[in-house]
């Protein structure tokens, strides 16, 4: 492995509700992500994959253990604007045009106007939405809105891109197109990506490595290297090796059941993951 971008060591996360009702969201998490890798976190609902992503992004703090990004504590990395985030909802501001939305992080950084404009246009070209710069978000489809969110996340050239089920709300066809799009962008920008998903095909198609998690308490059960050659395309989805890996991830997810969890949980896992 090359240089490490994300290092999660011995992390526990416990939520305390109403005084003493405790929920162990994550337990004993160790994870390393190398520079330029595309790593997906997959698991059933409640396995804490989003929480893990939020810990890396310093949107929440671990109960125990350490999270470092680029060799710094996550909070330092956030203040240094080391990463971009894409959430499940695009979170675009309706009062801003598409271009102004992409420009937002550059404004917050206090970059000069000319530089901001050039960079925003560059990012919009990257996601192929330059013709829609003057539109407002509500004039775009869901997939286009999410591409604007990606452009915005990439505007500061983050060394780490955190994506939390960004295509969860899209239909299957759009999702596949967006996956190809993300790979194209990733190959162009050489950003490190941590990607949370419910979808096995999505995880396999995109990733260099799939991190399989299980629930209650949330923990990592398998690391699966995805050795599909790059660049990947729609043909990749029809290769034998692709199906083998999809099966391998599915079995790893099902392994959850063999370790003594109830059948309702297995159903929940299959329902949301398949």
């Amino acid at each position, binding site marked *: 492995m090359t240089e490490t971008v994300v290092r999660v060591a011995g992390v526990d996360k416990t939520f305390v509700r109403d005084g003493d009702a405790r929920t162990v969201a994550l337990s004993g998490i160790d994870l390393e992500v190398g520079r330029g890798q595309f790593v997906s976190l997959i698991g059933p609902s409640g396995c804490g994959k989003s929480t893990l992503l939020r810990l890396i992004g310093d949107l929440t703090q671990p109960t125990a253990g350490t999270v470092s990004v680029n060799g710094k504590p996550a909070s330092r990395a956030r*203040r240094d604007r080391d*990463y971009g985030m894409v959430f499940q*909802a695009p*979170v675009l*501001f309706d009062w801003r045009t598409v271009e102004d939305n992409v420009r937002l992080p550059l404004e*917050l950084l206090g970059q000069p106007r000319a530089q901001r404009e050039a960079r925003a246009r560059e990012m919009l070209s990257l996601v*192929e*939405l330059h*013709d829609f710069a003057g539109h407002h978000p509500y004039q775009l*489809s869901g997939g286009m809105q999410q591409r604007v969110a990606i452009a915005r996340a990439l505007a500061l050239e983050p060394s780490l891109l955190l994506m939390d089920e960004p295509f969860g709300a899209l239909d299957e066809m759009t999702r596949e197109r967006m996956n190809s799009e993300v790979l194209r962008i990733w190959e162009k920008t050489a950003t490190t990506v941590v990607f949370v998903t419910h979808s096995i095909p999505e995880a396999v198609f995109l990733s260099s490595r799939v991190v399989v998690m299980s629930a209650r308490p949330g923990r990592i059960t398998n690391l699966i290297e995805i050795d599909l050659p790059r660049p990947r395309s729609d043909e990749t989805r029809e290769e034998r090796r692709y199906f083998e890996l999809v099966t391998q991830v599915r079995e790893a997810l099902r392994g959850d059941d063999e370790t003594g969890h109830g059948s309702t949980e297995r159903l929940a896992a299959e329902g949301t993951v398949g």
Partner: protein
Amino acid sequence: MTSAAPSVGIPLPAPARPPRAARLGRGLAASLPPMVTFIVVIIGWELAASRLQSRPYVMPPPSAILAALVENWSADRWPLLASAQHTFFEALGGLVIGTAVGLTVAFAVSRWASARDAVLPLAVAANAIPVIAVAPIMNNWFGVLEPLSKMMIAALLVFFPVMINVTRGLTQVEPGALELMRSYAASEGQTLRKVRVPNALPFFLTALKLGTTLSLIGAIVGEYFGGSSDVIGRVVVQSASALRFDVTWAAILLGSSAGIAFYLVIAAVERVLIPWHPSVRGEQVG
């Protein structure tokens, strides 16, 4: 929309705003039914009133009201134009004062939890005070002959909707938006300027539209309890006690026209300031 479709072929939705001519046509079509209703009511009123000729002071016909309006436009006894101007000035002053105080409290309350705990219950309680009951006190405090006393009554009415709506707008922000700002390590001030204030703008304009009507009500209620005589409230009281209901109706007509004009101004401002908002885009708010 002439721009080419993107390479990823997601269908382009219809443009949000149709061309100006179409919008104008739709506006006319929308205002036609209420106009027809209005004209039918006026004609019915005219006919009904002419049958009750023996007692014109019960229900003066629209033609008589119109005549009274013209006749008293700048008369000595009930100068309608001057009265409307004075009342409008009081309402406007009340709107400005009430809005300024409402905004100040809203920003303080949404910024500091301690201010929220200390002020919000009192503000809600203050809203329960029947304004008509405190009108004489305002007249006493700020001078019965001073327009300021009427402005304060209007301000009292305007304050609450502005305060409560703007507080909502500043605090009810999509959680994802706040997380996004946090992920960019944005300062509190940046979040206020770039998220909270734009988010509160539609709430504020809604409150202002309410405020236009409320401020006129407040001003006229204040006038009922005494003060200079060239105001809508006094004209209404005095012409009614002189059984000149044609003048009373004319004054009411003038007062409501002022209110409607006031409202339309704010609605126009709204279209300029928040063209992106569903209420202005003309889509269903969902």
